[in-house]
C-alpha cells in the first residue's frame, strides 16, 4: 500500500506547473475570450512538445505511454491556470484512441454540444454504442454561447458516411469515464486557485482597520472551501488508479470523484466571490474567468447529482 504519487510524477507535474505559470497567464486566458478560436495559441503547442497531450498515447505511437495517475496531476495544473483548451477532450478522452491530429474534440455521453469544434480537426463522436472519428470540416456546427467565452460550444450534426469507426463496447464507457475524471481533476485545480487568489486578496484588502482575511467569517468561508477540496483530491487520485489498473469498480470511483470535485470547486467559487466582495464581481478582475469555467465544468460530463445517482445504483 502506497497512496501517493511518485517523485517522477510530481516532478513532471512541477515542470508543467512552471510552464503554465509562465505561459498561460491570466492575460492569455482573457485573450482567449476575444480570440477567434477561444484558445491559448502557443500554449497548446508547448504542451504538445512537452508530451502533456500524449501522456496516454502508447510509446509505440510516439506517446509517453503513461496512465491516468500521471495525467490527473497535470490536469489539475491546467485547471489551476484555467487553460482555455479542450485538454480533457483531446488528451484524456481521445488520445488513447486517436493520436495525430493537432486537436480532437468529443461529442459523447449526453453532451448537447462539443467544445472548440470550430477549431478542432477531428470530432470523436458516439453513436449506436460505438465511437467514430469524424473530420470536423464534414460536420455542421451551430454555435452556442457559453458564459465562459473561451469555451466555443456548438451543436454538431454529422453523418456516419463521413466517419471512421474507432472503437466499441467497453471502450465507449471508458472514454466517458476518462472525460469525467479528467474534468474532476481540472476542477480541483480551478478550486485551489480560486481559494489562493482569495487568500491573497483578503490578506491585503483592509476594511474597518484590519485585513478582511482576519475576520472570522472570511476565514471560515475559505476554510470550508479548502476542506472540501482536501477530500476531493484522494477521490480523484483513487479513481485515476482504478482506471489505470482496470479496477472493475472504476466507473463508480470516477463518479465519486466527479461528484465531490464538482461540489467542492463550486463551493470554492462561491466562497471566493463572497470573500472578495464587489471586486470579484467585476469583469475586469480575473476571478470570474475561473468561476465561469468552474460552473461549466461542474455541469459537464455529468453533474454531481448525475454521478451520485450512478454511485447509488452501485452501492444501494
Amino acid at each position, binding site marked *: 500500500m502506497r497512496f501517493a504519487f511518485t517523485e517522477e510524477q510530481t516532478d513532471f507535474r512541477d515542470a508543467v506547473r512552471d510552464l503554465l505559470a509562465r505561459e498561460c497567464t491570466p492575460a492569455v486566458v482573457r485573450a482567449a475570450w476575444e480570440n477567434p478560436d477561444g484558445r491559448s495559441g502557443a500554449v497548446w503547442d508547448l504542451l504538445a512538445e512537452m508530451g502533456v497531450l500524449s501522456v496516454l498515447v502508447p510509446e509505440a505511437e510516439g506517446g509517453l505511454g503513461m496512465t491516468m495517475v500521471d495525467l490527473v496531476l497535470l490536469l489539475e495544473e491546467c485547471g489551476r491556470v484555467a487553460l482555455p483548451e479542450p485538454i480533457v477532450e483531446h488528451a484524456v478522452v481521445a488520445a488513447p484512441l486517436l493520436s495525430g491530429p493537432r486537436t480532437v474534440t468529443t461529442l459523447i455521453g449526453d453532451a448537447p*454540444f462539443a467544445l472548440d469544434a470550430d477549431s478542432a480537426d477531428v470530432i470523436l463522436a458516439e453513436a449506436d454504442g460505438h465511437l467514430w472519428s469524424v473530420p470536423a470540416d464534414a460536420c455542421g456546427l451551430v454555435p452556442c454561447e*457559453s458564459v465562459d467565452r473561451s*469555451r466555443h460550444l456548438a451543436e454538431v450534426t454529422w453523418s456516419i458516411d463521413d466517419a471512421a469507426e474507432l472503437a466499441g463496447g467497453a471502450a465507449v464507457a471508458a472514454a466517458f469515464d476518462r472525460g469525467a475524471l479528467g474534468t474532476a481533476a481540472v476542477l480541483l485545480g480551478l478550486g485551489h486557485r480560486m481559494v489562493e487568489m482569495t487568500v491573497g486578496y483578503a490578506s491585503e484588502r483592509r476594511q474597518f482597520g484590519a485585513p478582511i482575511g482576519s475576520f472570522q467569517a*472570511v476565514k471560515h468561508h475559505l476554510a470550508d472551501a479548502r476542506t472540501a477540496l482536501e477530500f476531493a483530491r484522494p477521490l480523484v487520485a483513487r479513481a485515476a488508479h482504478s482506471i489505470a489498473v482496470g479496477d472493475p469498480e472504476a466507473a463508480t470511483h470516477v463518479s465519486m470523484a466527479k461528484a465531490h470535485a464538482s461540489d467542492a470547486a463550486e463551493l470554492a467559487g*462561491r466562497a471566493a*466571490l463572497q470573500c472578495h*466582495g464587489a471586486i470579484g*464581481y467585476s469583469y475586469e478582475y480575473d476571478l470570474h474567468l475561473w468561476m465561469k469555467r468552474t460552473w461549466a465544468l461542474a455541469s459537464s460530463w455529468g453533474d454531481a447529482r448525475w454521478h451520485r445517482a450512478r454511485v447509488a445504483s452501485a452501492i444501494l
Partner: protein
Amino acid sequence: MDLTFSPAEEAFRREVREWLAANVPDPALPSGDTREGFAAHLAWERRLFDARLAVVSWPEAYGGRDASLWEWIIFEEEYYRAGAPQRVTQNGIFLLAPSIFMFGTQAQQDRYLPRMASGEETWGQGWSEPEAGSDLAGVKSRAVRDEAACGWRLSGQKTWTTRGAFCTHMFGLFRSDPEAERHRGLTYFLVPLDAPGVTVRGFGRLDGDEGFAEVFLDDVFVPDDCVLGEVHQGWGVAMATAGSERGLTLRSPGRFTAAAGRLVDLWREHADPTDSGLRDDVTRVWIDAEAYRLQTLEVVTTLSGGGHSGPEASMVKIFWSELDIRIHELAQRILGPRAELEGPWSKGWQFSLSGPIYAGTNEIQRNVVAERVLGLPRK
C-alpha cells in the same frame, strides 16, 4: 387579522395588470446595463410615467398617485408577474428619493423628484470608494468649502456606481470636515455628472454588461443647494437611504414570488417529475418566497400603523439575497449541461450572486442581526 385587499385595491390591481398586459415590450428589451439597452429602458420608463405608474406611492404633484404601501405591494407584484423590464431608475426612485422626501427642502423636492420620476434625470449611487466598501465610514473623497462661490468643490473617486456611465446624476457622501473621523464630518451631495471636472469610466459586472462605473471628481464645483440635509450630517442621511436599500422598498416580494413561479414553470418543462429531491428543493424555495411575501405584509402592516422598521431589515436582506441564489441555483441544476449557456437564467444566476455582496455584505448584516436584534456584545 384580515388578509383580503379592498375593492379599491383590487380595482387598482386590475388596472395595473391590464395596462402591463397591453404595454410590456415583447420581445424583452436588451439589458438595461448596456448603453443601448439603457436608452430603450428609459423610453419604457417614460411610458410608465405617462401612465402614472412610475412612482405610484409618490404625491400626484410629482407624478405619483399617493398610493398606499398596500397598493405599492400590489403594483410590484403585478409588475414582476408580467415580466416587465427592470427599473433602470431604481437607484433614484428607491434609494435617493426617500431621503429627498425626508431631508430635502421643498425646492429640492420640486427640482429633483419630477425629473427622476419621468426618467429625464437618472441617478447612480456614490457610496463606495476603492478603499471604502463594506466600511462606508472610511470614505476619503473630499468636499472643500468655496465660500465665495456659495458652494463646494468635490474631489476624489467613487466606484461601483450602478449604471454610472449612463446616468445624469450621482448622490453620495463626501468628507466635508477634514478634521473629523469616520462617521462624522461627512456631507451628502447631489452631483450632476456633466459638471466640469467629472470623469466617468464604465466597467463590466460579472456577466460583462457595463453595469458599473468609476466616477473621478477633480475639483468639481457644486452649489449649496446640492447638499441634501445638513452640512457634516451626511451619515444620518446616508443611513436612511441605506435603510431603504436593505429594507422594504427595493426588494419587493413580487420579485421573488415571480422568480419562484418561473422556476416552477422551468421545472414543469424540463425536470424529471419523479426526482423527489428536486421537487423538494423547488418546493422549498417556493415556500420561502411565500414566507418572504408574508413577512413583508407584516412589515407593511406595521408601517401602515405608524410603526418603524428596525434592524430586523438586516434579516430581510439576508433572506432575500440567499433565496434569490437558491432559486437560480436550482434553475441551473435543472438546465444541467445547458446551464452554462448565455440566457435569462444564467444572467439571473450571475445577478443573484451580487445579492449577498451589495447593500452591505451579508456578513455585515449578520453582525447587525447579532448585535442589534439579538443584543450580542460588539466586542
